[in-house]
């Protein structure tokens, strides 16, 4: 069964004719070719597929695309700061908060959501905000430092 939806992704509007079973993650990757949003557990546990849906972080694997009719979505591809990286991305590069990189887009989106709400989060708040993003390389320490640096709190 198919339905038409309208979706704005990274500022571009799309009209899509979709099987009702497609998740937002399926649509981003398979229909729109935005491969920065990663698929891993497909069950809301790992956070690799985190995007901002109407400004709120969500695991896009747990969202039906048809439920997003009229919504605004921001993915890692939509983060721009002039020609450069977003401050969170830049800070991850500078602190070495990236190992294999698979969790990185999801981490970035969770951090962007946090900093959008709180300009100076505490370490505990950063940890809580990233609790739904797993890094199987276990590089959490530097990721947290990166978020602190991006928030202008780097030591």
């Amino acid at each position, binding site marked *: 069964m198919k339905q038409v939806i309208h979706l704005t992704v990274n500022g571009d509007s799309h009209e899509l004719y979709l099987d009702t079973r497609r998740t937002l993650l399926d649509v981003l990757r398979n229909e729109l070719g935005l491969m920065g949003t990663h698929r891993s557990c497909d*069950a*809301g546990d790992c956070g690799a597929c985190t995007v901002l849906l109407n400004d709120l972080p969500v*695991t896009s694997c747990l*969202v*039906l695309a048809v*439920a997003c009719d009229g919504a605004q979505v921001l993915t890692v591809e939509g983060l721009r700061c002039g020609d450069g990286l977003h401050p969170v991305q830049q800070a991850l590069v500078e602190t070495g908060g990236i190992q294999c990189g698979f969790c990185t887009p999801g981490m970035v989106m*969770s951090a962007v959501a946090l900093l959008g709400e709180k300009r100076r989060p505490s370490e505990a708040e950063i940890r809580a905000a990233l*609790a*739904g993003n797993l890094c199987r390389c276990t590089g959490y320490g530097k990721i947290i430092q990166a978020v602190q640096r991006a928030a202008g709190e780097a030591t």
Partner: protein
Amino acid sequence: MQPFEYHSPRSLPEALRLLQELGDGARLIAGGTDLLLRMKQGQLAPRALIDLRRAAELHGISFSPEEGLRIGAAVTLRELQRSPLVRDHCPCLCETASWMASEQVRSLATVGGNLCNASPAADLAPPLMVLDAQAVLVGPQGERRLPVEAFFLGPGQTALDRGELLKEVLVPPTPGNALYLKHAPRAFMDIAVVGVAVHLRMERGLARAVRIALGAVGPTPLRAGPSEALLEGSAPTASLLEEAADLAARACSPIDDLRGSAWYRRRMVRVLTRRALDRLCAASLVGEGT
């Protein structure tokens, strides 16, 4: 997943009409964080989904001095966690929400979904039970109210009749304090191995309105009646609190599963009940200005 029709009603009457028309093959969906997983795993294959998120009547949090807090079934855990009204009147619910799932899941998951999924480990159940909350059910025949504890009939089973849905939860104003302690290997992103909620208030040194609810240690979240009866109207001494905690451990019927053994769960019920009682008695004594 099997193919399904998707409906997104714009009002509560429209949702109820669809539920009636589409019959047994249809399922309600709110955040989808429980339902979609079960569909992906092939445990459920509804022919139609009725999405409740666009029905305005199911949204919003309000407070009145007579009725207390009204929390719409489609309120998300994120909204619950950040609501100034909830923080003022039932801080225990904000606190509970803040330890559930993750930021991403809390943006989606709803209060109604947590209760209607009827997991024995649903984290909102024990605190709502000790806060004496009522569930407001609505169906073709109109509305009815049930205490939240009467809403759960078994794992995955609720008191909702065919054609009914959960509209909101009402939490009466309370002069007492409530606390929910969740025991899980990880602070976030984990289902409770045991959850214990306690409510009480101290009046001239005596414990009043003592309510204790236990999660993940029986087919439904349950009240620890014998412990409550022991403490009600008493001056809580260390030995009395210990006895009450012991009775709570005996009131439950946990099972062995991958999250913990029945033996361990029972021990943890005792530990957490004691801990919650200690904290609330201490907090209330301070609050009394003695």
